[in-house]
């Protein structure tokens, strides 16, 4: 009886970290389910998961990447970790592509490096050689890695690149220019009675940083899904706000404005759907973000502004027509 118990003890993870990269799929129009399935079929032995409610969503099988390197740490502590990083890609409504790479880590591991077999039975787990200084890793991870330290962002990026390279399925003729975003997250279990408040900040280089306290027993995959959802909605807000920021309304016939507004209506406005797939136990976290900074509030205001602008353009045009 003792063997399984010990097994479960040393695989209990106390930390989950990851990075999400979000971008527009490089095609003129959103792709259908069939193309989505072909784009995300990254492994022959596992299927792409497709769902249609409440929106169209496709998720690739998990891809494991073996690593044996130092974890980023604040304060220069050297922690070597060995194991696998899990990565997957998702396509929302055939339009927005996301790649996530994440790992979980137990509080301590064997003092010596084990053979690969030991790590391979723990997919998505990085086992430290010795003890894990949790706080130092969270801080180091969120501030960014140094040379020769683990870079999960590049694992996510390489997945995006791999999908973007499928030129038989993609036309690379996007209807609008958008900037990719990266969101880096770290989650620790919440202490008893501690509120599950997320910390959402934007670093100088544009990287989004989220620090989470999650209810005990939350799986790393559920945390990753939450962060994908966050990243998607943050990307939508950023993209639409950027476009409206540079909008020139002064031009005579409003054609310049229409050129900017039209693709937003055609491709992005319908994608807003917070918590579509987030685990119910994590609802409270989203609620916090709705309070401050108020994701949906800002979105509603932006969407309203776009619709108002379009209505004004229409009026101006019909006025001009009547006058002539």
């Amino acid at each position, binding site marked *: 009886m003792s063997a399984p118990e010990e097994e479960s003890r040393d695989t209990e993870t106390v930390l989950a970290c990851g990075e999400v990269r979000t*971008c*527009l799929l490089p095609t003129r129009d959103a792709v259908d389910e069939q193309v989505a399935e072909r784009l995300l079929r990254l492994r022959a032995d596992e299927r792409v998961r497709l769902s249609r409610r409440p929106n169209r969503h496709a998720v690739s099988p998990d891809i494991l990447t073996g690593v044996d390197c130092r974890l980023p740490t604040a304060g220069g502590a050297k922690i070597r970790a060995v194991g696998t990083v899990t990565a997957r890609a998702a396509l929302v409504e055939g339009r927005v592509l996301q790649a996530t790479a994440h790992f979980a880590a137990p509080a301590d591991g064997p003092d010596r490096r084990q053979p690969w077999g030991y790590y391979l039975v723990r997919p998505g787990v990085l086992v430290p050689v010795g003890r894990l200084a949790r706080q130092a890793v969270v801080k180091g991870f969120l501030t960014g890695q140094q040379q020769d330290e683990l870079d999960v962002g590049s694992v996510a*990026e390489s997945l995006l*690149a791999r999908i*973007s*390279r499928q030129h038989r399925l993609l036309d*690379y003729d996007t209807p609008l220019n958008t900037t990719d975003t990266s969101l880096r997250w770290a989650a620790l279990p919440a202490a008893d009675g501690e509120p599950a408040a997320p910390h959402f900040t934007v670093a100088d280089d544009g990287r989004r940083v989220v620090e989470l306290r999650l209810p005990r027993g939350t799986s790393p995959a559920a945390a990753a899904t939450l962060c994908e959802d966050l990243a998607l909605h943050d990307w939508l807000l950023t993209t639409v706000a950027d476009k409206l920021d540079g909008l*020139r309304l002064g031009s005579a016939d409003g054609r310049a404005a229409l050129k900017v507004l039209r693709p937003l209506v055609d491709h992005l406005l319908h994608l807003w759907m917070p918590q579509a797939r987030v685990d119910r136990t994590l609802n409270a976290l989203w609620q916090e973000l709705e309070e401050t900074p108020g994701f949906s509030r800002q979105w509603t205001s932006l969407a309203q502004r776009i619709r108002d602008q379009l209505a004004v353009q229409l009026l101006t045009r019909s006025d001009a027509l009547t006058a002539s």
Partner: protein
Amino acid sequence: MFAASDKGGTGRSVTSANLAYHRALDGDDVCYLDFDFGSPTAAAVFDLPDVLSEAEGRGLHSYLKGKTGEPLRVDVWSRTEHPVLRSRPGGSGRLVLLPGDRTGGEFVTDEENLHRCVDLVLRLKREFDVIIVDLSAGRSYAMDLALAATSPRGGLGRLKTRWLVYHRWTRQHVMAAAELVYGKQGIVQAGVAMGHETDALSASIRFVRAAVPNLDSPMWSQVSAAQYAWMRQCDTQLEEIAAARGIGKTRVLSSIPLEPVLQWQERLITDEDVHDRRIANVETWQKMGELAQRLTEDKHWGQL
């Protein structure tokens, strides 16, 4: 857009940078990749003195070699020390430089470099309207990389690609430019060997004549009648040589006049240089703008 030239000193980098600047002024999001392995100059043209040292180990060479996951990006509007550029005009697009490493040098390219190059361009394509890649002079590894990447099986085959070949308006340069494109070791032959179709590839190549003396401009009004006649004759002869080698007027996208400011300094010519300070010629400004426009006007491209 790939910028190539037959030799050094043709104003390839400086004209391409001005082209990028004009496109950004017109509202396009533009990024400029300094692939001039060996002598990266773009940072100087955009007036970014700190970038050279910053790019050490983080520039395009390091990225292509796999030493860094992401190459350094520099926002020109916010980082430049150029007084006019610092105030970004309303309605302008983004202008981003991806610098090369100072100590990069030429290197032999392999499959992995190719993949990295393709991934980078596909990624930039999502963000930018125009991607300008400044290649080194002559046939270079960078050019082979570009040809391989844009070939039908290279990964960038479905992107609209255009090549500009810069040359000066002298007999040697005209012949060298023709050789660079149509010669045995030229771009077309090399491209075909990598899977390009001859017609499609040559339809995507145009020439830019740089530092062309405009004999009717005031700059030459003081020359003697004999000198004038001789220059006219040279000009006509050059036109004949160019036509005979397949780089006559129909293949020229634009001729950039000889500009004294550029003779002294590799820099961007701004509206202010032309109209307020009056140090640069208005023709130069107009021609740079014309070149920037024609880059994406289909009627100037295609099969002749």
